[in-house]
């Protein structure tokens, strides 16, 4: 299944969740903001939100340094 991740095409397995993708990318779920097709996903839904073919996914790390 193909999704667009931050403007780049990416293949993910059927049934991949937001939490699963973040794990594959090596990101801590704690400090990431995820948007799918223009809507930011509530952090409590990362485990049960699955991607669909053609989803436009935006991912921004949320960091605390200054």
């Amino acid at each position, binding site marked *: 299944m193909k999704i667009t991740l931050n403007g780049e095409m990416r293949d993910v397995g059927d049934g991949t969740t937001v939490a699963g993708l973040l794990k594959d990318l090596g990101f801590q779920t704690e400090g990431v903001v995820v948007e799918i097709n223009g809507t930011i996903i509530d952090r409590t839904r990362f485990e049960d939100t699955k991607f669909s073919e053609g989803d436009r996914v935006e991912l921004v790390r949320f960091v605390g340094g*200054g």
Partner: protein
Amino acid sequence: MVHLTEEQRIRYARNIRIPGIGEVGQAKLRESRVAVVGLGGLGSPLCLYLAAAGIGTLGLIDADVVELSNLQRQVLHATSRIGKKKTESAAEVLQALNPEVNLVLVDRRVTAETAEGILENYDVVAEATDNFESKFLINDVCLRMKKPFATAGILGLSGQAQFVVPGKTPCLRCLFPQVPRGTPTTAELGVLGAVPGILGSLEALEIIRWVVGLWQPREDGSGRLHGVDGVSMSLRTLTVRRRPDCGCAAIR
């Protein structure tokens, strides 16, 4: 009603030429009072660009001293001023850059107890602290005081920035109801100086847009989260919506 001196017309000629700023916008900058909390990586470009642009009063807020390990990113400071208070080190540079700016040096920590007293005399706040606890504290205090604020974070090769207008945009807690925990610091994972260079400059731009009146609320009440990722070299902008159960939702 706009009285700029001949010297100001020359100094700010390229501000004044920008559609939406003009002499009226320049006068607004001169009359504005901006607090910068944190004179580090983000605070460095923030202070430099705000002072250069002609902000009237700049509050320089930081309780630390300049250290050698600061200098690869905190370009406001200098090797010759290691050991000096950051407020004084910053003031030296900013006074030389633009003697017209009124600098207020606040050599204190912003805490739950001190924040309101420190920030009350400013129109708008630039949050440039180095930890989530302070960022979320400033979020909460600014919401309570109905002060708009720019906020950003940096780590490694990435960072993000937002501009919050109480009652008009979402706040930090619309994204993160709880302060993120257990995330690494720049002391652990490092940070490249150009990263706060970008994010601090974004904050300065947001503040100036607000002061001159270029900022407009979006009809649906949404805000934006700007993300910079220097690993994949991509810049992303996400639409943030107000969370109905957030503490900021009651603010009008």
